[in-house]
């Protein structure tokens, strides 16, 4: 964006000083200026709408997480989703955006706090801010799913605040800072993550992993012999609605990351859609083979896995590449859920770690393979792939590391987990003093 403005400005100047000024020269400049202005308006309209779509992913997450957990904790999960977005929006406006996109000291941005220095009104920066705010909120909200049904509400508010305040923004500045005034070492090395398989999803996923580990599993999740037991979700229609909403919002997430209203958004919409579709299908068949039935929760997670996986490379892989990336993501997510649940014995009620963490890594590496310019399969050698590995690895170290520290600190001080009795009775009564489904008869004990 900014670059273009300079280029055109420069052209304008050149034209101005070139003599003799021919009539058509002047008007060529005028045409360019008009074009630039209009294109900026198109970009703003497009990017704003994309931001709204990404905002709409918030109820998508809320419905998925609510539907895949038990009725007695439904209010709690909804409040968490509402509050991480609310608290996060303000934290990101005041601090996070500056850390991520301000002029960098090499490690993080140091200007633009509270949008300082940006004129109120028509500046592109505001559009960019709303777009980036909803991205930050996506990273933050991923965590709540993995920590559902046992986390203290106060503890949740605190860690959610820190994620939007600095954990997400600082990593973000390394990979995406150059999109505005910043510039980070990862992007400097050529790390490609178009819409955030790593920056948003893996970071969220690894934070979620840290949280789930520190918390420990829900009561009754593992039998005394260590065998995992199923704790079924209470409202699959709601969860399915959530997945469809996420898919819908993801068009804004991926295609909107152009922040430019032009041809490639149609292309990105196609790759995004194909990857999601392929992943839903392969996840269903994988579940069908392993568990003998086409499990709906796996198919739904499969669609999300495909979306996460294509996020990094949606602009730069072929449609067939997209189908492959999605297909592998769909298989991966099922295996990963089974592995984390059954082998690692980490209790992640909605599969957030597998969907966002694991498939985020897969999508990031897939760029190294399928990128039509620099990917291994297109003769680009191992260079891109190794940069992608570095980026994905850094995200893991940063997010999982800080996550462990943060959650342990909260756990040792104000406490991260509710009491056993509260967990049995449900967090809705315990934390919020209300029920999700007043009047309905529900077997809370099942």
């Amino acid at each position, binding site marked *: 964006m900014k670059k273009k403005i300079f280029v055109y400005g420069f052209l304008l100047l050149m034209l101005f000083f070139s003599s003799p000024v021919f009539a058509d020269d002047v008007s060529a400049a005028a045409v360019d200026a008009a074009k630039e202005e209009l294109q900026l308006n198109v970009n703003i309209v497009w990017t704003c709408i994309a931001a709204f779509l990404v905002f709409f992913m918030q109820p998508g997450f809320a419905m998925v997480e609510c539907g895949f957990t038990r009725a007695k904790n439904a209010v709690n999960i909804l409040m968490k989703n509402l509050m991480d977005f609310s608290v996060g929006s303000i934290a990101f406006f005041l601090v996070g955006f500056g850390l991520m996109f301000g002029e960098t000291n090499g490690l993080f941005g140091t200007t633009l706090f509270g949008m300082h220095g940006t004129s109120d009104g028509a500046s592109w920066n505001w559009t960019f801010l709303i777009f980036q705010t909803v991205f930050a909120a996506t990273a933050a909200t991923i965590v709540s799913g993995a920590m559902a049904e046992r986390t203290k509400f106060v503890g949740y508010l605190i860690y959610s605040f820190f994620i939007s305040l600095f954990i997400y923004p600082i990593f973000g500045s390394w990979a995406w800072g150059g999109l505005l005034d910043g510039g980070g070492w990862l992007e400097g090395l050529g790390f490609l993550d178009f819409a955030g398989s790593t920056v948003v999803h893996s970071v969220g996923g690894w934070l979620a992993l840290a949280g789930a580990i520190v918390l420990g599993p829900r009561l009754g999740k593992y039998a005394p012999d260590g065998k*995992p*037991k*199923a*704790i*079924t*979700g209470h409202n699959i229609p709601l969860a399915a609605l959530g997945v469809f909403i996420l898919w819908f919002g993801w068009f804004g997430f991926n295609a909107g990351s152009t922040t430019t209203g032009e041809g490639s958004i149609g292309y990105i919409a196609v790759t995004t859609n194909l990857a999601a579709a392929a992943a839903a299908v392969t996840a269903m068949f994988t*579940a069908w083979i*392993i*568990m*003998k*039935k086409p*499990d709906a*929760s*796996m198919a739904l997670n499969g669609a999300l896995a495909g979306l996460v996986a294509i996020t990094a490379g949606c602009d730069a892989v072929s449609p067939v590449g997209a189908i492959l990336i999605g297909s592998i993501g769909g298989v991966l997510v*099922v295996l990963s*859920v*089974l592995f984390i*649940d*059954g082998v690692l014995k980490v209790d992640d009620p909605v*599969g957030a770690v597998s969907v966002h963490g694991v498939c985020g890594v897969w999508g990031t590496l897939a760029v190294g393979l399928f990128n039509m310019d620099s990917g291994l399969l297109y003769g680009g050698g191992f260079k891109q792939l190794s940069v992608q590995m570095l980026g994905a690895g850094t995200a893991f170290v940063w997010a999982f590391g800080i996550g462990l520290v943060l959650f342990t600190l909260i756990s040792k001080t104000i406490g991260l987990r509710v009491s056993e009795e509260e967990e049995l009775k449900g967090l809705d009564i315990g934390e919020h003093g209300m029920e999700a489904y007043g009047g309905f*008869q529900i*077997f809370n004990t*099942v």
Partner: protein
Amino acid sequence: MKLIIAYIQQHKLKDVKQALYKANVHKMSVTNSLGCGEQHGYEESYRGIKFEVNLLKKVRLEIAVNQEFMQQAIDAIVEGARSGEIGDGKIFVIDLVECVRIRTGETGQKAIG
């Protein structure tokens, strides 16, 4: 007077109701219930974990009858509910001391039907 309590498979309710009607038993009350018996539960799987559902959904009938209707009511329930497979259910009978029709205040045998 007797109170008959019967646990049957959910999807047999229609057949049982029909059999009871034929046996001239028109009044009953139906409740949802979870049952745990000889039937060992089917396997549900959710997110890759198979688990045995050992509390199975059943329908609970409560039917108050006069003594002379008891046997034909039991027979009707058995007829409507039996498939021969485990899980078909159970019938329990207890003594009813009194019965009151709220609308009229009638009591005893004439209140039951």
